[in-house]
């Protein structure tokens, strides 16, 4: 890696505010208002972002959807104008951003390459010389002479990537493009990015693949709601981001009183005396995907280890865990029931717990809030990402969903044992394999 001290990308307290209007009419009213009355709401897509990148550095940007990653890349590529702050990128910048941009859909692949090459300052002759390399890298075959509108998204990406790397950029800006490529082309692109890095070019990329970030970046920043949460070495930033995504997203801390009530209600229910929890992070479920006839009945949810009484997000087999539900005052429910379902990353249920089947109906209160706890020993399931969906039902004639929250709690199952890494769902403890020679 040839890193020199020359600063290539520089940004100083960039902010981007989008004006959101309720309707077109509001926009026109604001434009023509004689007293400059405002009709918009402000949305801060980016707040006070400062970065500086030296020649040969690779910056990885991570963050959940809507955290401002793409807006930042668009600003660096001079496509979007920041609301305040200043930035500069030295040299030729090529950007691979959203798939809709870039090519003229009516023209063929080759016509687009020559045309866009011209926009980047290459003459027709220069582009004609490059075209073979570009098409060879893209491997789109006969589609090169077909209009872009007939391309699949994968082919589009292949051509866009190939063009971007062959027009000798000094700075390459890549937004999650590898998401649509097949595995082999992805590897080819990543090799090319490594090559670029070794040639001392400066790269900014954003990705949801932490492996990509760890492998290729020399620096990482984590954005959340438009602000830089952390900046530093890719390994530590991605680890912190992972931990955040698994557990503490949308968490709130409720005062000690409710924490006490967790214990007291638990004492009645389970007849155990758990240690007093030091602190419990409750997941605010109000913003999550939910449905039911009594929406917002479930207010918060949490998960703790019964022995340590600490919040957990990474679980092991045989761990004593407790799922907690904080319920609002409810209307009188006939035959209430609590349901819980653990789903794997594909949304397929792994196991379900139903208070009716286990013959322990919850006692809900119509004039005060309630906390319900569900204790069990975590079963033998394979390592991976899982989520708990939680719900309250009323079992009259037909089941009535009072409130069901999808993916209320996200967990990571992590066991060091190799048997948990095989990728299926359930882990078998002991297997006896015999060979008989016949």
């Amino acid at each position, binding site marked *: 890696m040839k890193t020199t001290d020359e600063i290539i990308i520089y940004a100083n307290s960039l902010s981007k505010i989008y004006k959101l209007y309720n309707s077109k009419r509001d926009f*026109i009213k604001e434009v023509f208002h004689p007293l400059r009355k405002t009709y918009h709401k402000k949305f801060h897509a980016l707040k006070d972002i400062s970065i500086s990148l030296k020649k040969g550095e690779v910056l990885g940007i991570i963050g959940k959807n809507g955290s401002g990653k793409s807006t930042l890349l668009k600003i660096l590529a001079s*496509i979007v104008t920041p609301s305040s702050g200043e930035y500069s990128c030295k040299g030729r910048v090529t950007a691979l951003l959203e798939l809709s941009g*870039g090519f003229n859909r009516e023209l063929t692949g080759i016509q687009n390459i020559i*045309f866009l090459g011209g926009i980047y300052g290459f003459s027709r002759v220069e582009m004609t010389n490059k075209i073979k390399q570009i098409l060879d890298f893209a491997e789109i075959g006969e589609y090169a002479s077909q209009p872009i509108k007939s391309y699949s998204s994968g082919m589009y990406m292949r051509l866009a990537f190939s063009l971007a790397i062959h027009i000798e950029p000094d700075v390459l800006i890549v937004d999650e493009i590898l998401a649509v490529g097949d595995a082999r082309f992805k590897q080819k692109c990543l090799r090319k990015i490594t090559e670029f890095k070794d040639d001392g070019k400066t790269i900014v990329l954003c990705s949801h693949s932490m492996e990509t970030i760890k492998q290729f970046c020399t620096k990482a920043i984590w954005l959340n709601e438009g602000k830089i949460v952390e900046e530093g070495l890719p390994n530590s930033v991605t680890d912190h981001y992972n931990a955040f995504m698994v557990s503490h997203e949308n968490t709130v801390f409720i005062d000690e009183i409710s924490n006490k009530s967790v214990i007291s209600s638990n004492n009645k229910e389970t007849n155990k005396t758990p240690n007093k929890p030091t602190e419990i992070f409750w997941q605010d479920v109000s913003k999550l995907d939910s449905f039911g006839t009594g929406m917002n009945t479930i207010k918060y949810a949490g998960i703790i280890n019964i022995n340590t009484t600490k919040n957990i997000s990474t679980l092991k087999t045989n761990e004593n865990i407790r799922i907690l539900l904080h319920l609002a005052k409810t209307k009188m429910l006939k035959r209430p029931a609590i349901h819980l379902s653990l789903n794997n990353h594909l949304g397929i249920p792994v196991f379900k717990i139903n208070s009716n089947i286990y013959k322990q109906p919850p006692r809900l209160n119509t004039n005060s809030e309630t906390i319900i706890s569900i204790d069990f020993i975590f079963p033998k399931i394979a390592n991976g990402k899982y989520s708990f969906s939680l719900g309250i039902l009323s079992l009259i004639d037909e089941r009535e969903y009072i409130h069901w929250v999808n993916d209320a709690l996200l967990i990571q199952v992590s066991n060091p044992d190799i048997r948990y890494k095989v990728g299926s769902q359930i882990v078998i403890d002991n297997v006896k394999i015999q060979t008989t020679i016949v």
Partner: protein
Amino acid sequence: MKSSKSIISTLIKQRYIFKLLVIRDFKSRYLSSFIGLPWAFIQPTAYVFVIWFAFTFGLKGGQTASGGEFAPWLILGLIPWLFISQTMVVSSNSISQYSYLLKKTKFPVGMIPIIKIFSGMIVHIILIILILFVIVFFYGIQPTVYWFQIFYYLFALIVLLTGISWFVASVNVFIHDMAHIVTILITMLFWATPIVWSYTMLTGKLKYIALLNPFFYITEGYRYTFLEQRWFFEFPEMNIFFWTFTLLIFILGAYTFNKLSPSFADVL
């Protein structure tokens, strides 16, 4: 004034890209259909014929100011008008048409409406040449030194249209109603300006207003150049009014465009 300067200086710096885009735009406008380039000439020919037919046989108003032949007089007024109206229509949608470029690269967006003027002008100039052949061979009109005035009028057209198209193109990105307003304006201006009928039909104040119309300045200018053998500077009032109006439109267009263009990528 400053804003128009900056757009023009990038235009000169990036003239290679500009040329490329004009050619590309011309090709996509006229060469993408099956018949292709002939459409650029069939359409105005049909248009001129219909108007000529209506005025000669239907409305019976086909008379010229100087008492010459009606057909060449009509054609020479209609051709610049067709160029003006088409440019206004296509430039109002030009930014969204080129949004694929704005989303991809750092791009001198101020060029886009001007691209439309120049790609339309290619056809316009070819049309003028064809018409000159027609009037020389069929109507026996002799070329004169006045014909060189066409370069002055083409220049005046570019300046006027640049201001207008910067304005309509940038406003239309945010308020799509602009394209509709432009269509109505064009119809109104077409019948309200003495393009297909002679300004001599007007009297008093109305005549004065017609003479100050900037579009009339252009269409009548084409007639001065090729038919009536007059110099553009023979009418100082018209000149003063036209250039004041055109420069104001130009500054307004440049100001509006520069004000709005940073937000284009946010809404496209």
